[in-house]
């Protein structure tokens, strides 16, 4: 029994689905943010697995660029969470309902 690419792709799909569930089920902005990071990681796993399967290094380059974008996103996202927390003393997304029509 050897590891094939299908195992990696199924693992990545499972991690992505868990991330989707996390964004839908939780109301804490930090945990939702961690779920988004989980989804980005699963996409990176897909990129690297396909890179190995096809023998192309471009998949790993794409994974590195995704990591850079994720790092920038974490910086801005956490800054927004801290800024919201400073004015409202809460990281609960349901309380941010001022723009509700």
């Amino acid at each position: 029994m050897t590891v094939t690419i299908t195992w990696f792709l199924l693992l990545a799909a499972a991690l992505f689905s868990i991330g989707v569930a996390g964004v839908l089920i939780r109301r804490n902005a930090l945990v939702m943010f961690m779920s988004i990071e989980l989804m980005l990681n699963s996409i990176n796993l897909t990129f690297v697995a396909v890179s190995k399967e096809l023998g192309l290094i471009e998949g790993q380059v794409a994974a590195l660029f995704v990591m850079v974008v994720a790092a920038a996103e974490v910086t801005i996202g956490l800054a927004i969470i801290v800024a919201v927390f400073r004015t409202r003393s809460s990281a609960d997304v349901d309380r941010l309902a001022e723009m509700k029509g």
Partner: protein
Amino acid sequence: MAETVVFIIFAAVALVGAVSIIMAKNTVYSAMGLLATMFSIAVLYVVLDAHFVAAVQVIIYAGAVMTLFLFVIMLVGVDKPEAYGAQIPAQRIMTIVVAIGFFAAIALAGQAAWVTGSDAFGTPNLNGTAEAVADEIFGTWVVVFLSTVMLLTIAALGTIALAYFQDVPAEEVAE
């Protein structure tokens, strides 16, 4: 055989960590689950011969990003219980159904689209060393690399703007 054992162990750790992110009541435990998942994914990168990406994964995600997360958890406060009251009825069950359906859809679509059908996994000459990756980044993708430099600079500027230029006093916004 060793590959199979490593894959099974670390795939299990990754899945347990991922579930603990969304199930843990305490945000710190969520962060620990994310840390376990990121380390396991780094090990799986090594299995896939992506050594440089594995090193970057450990340094950036398990190092920098997780430190930032734990720092913000410390700022925001770890002991605030989450309000589960204001959710849509049956949100948990609906979410589980959506997640399982999403997984099934990805698996089916992947099965339909993945038609290369090579049975030997991977090509032996692919080795994701720093040199191989750098050749590609600074050769073919150098413009993309330079735009990520701009992106990171803009992200740093945006963070500074969010931290310093808050002209609305806290008393006016607070409910």
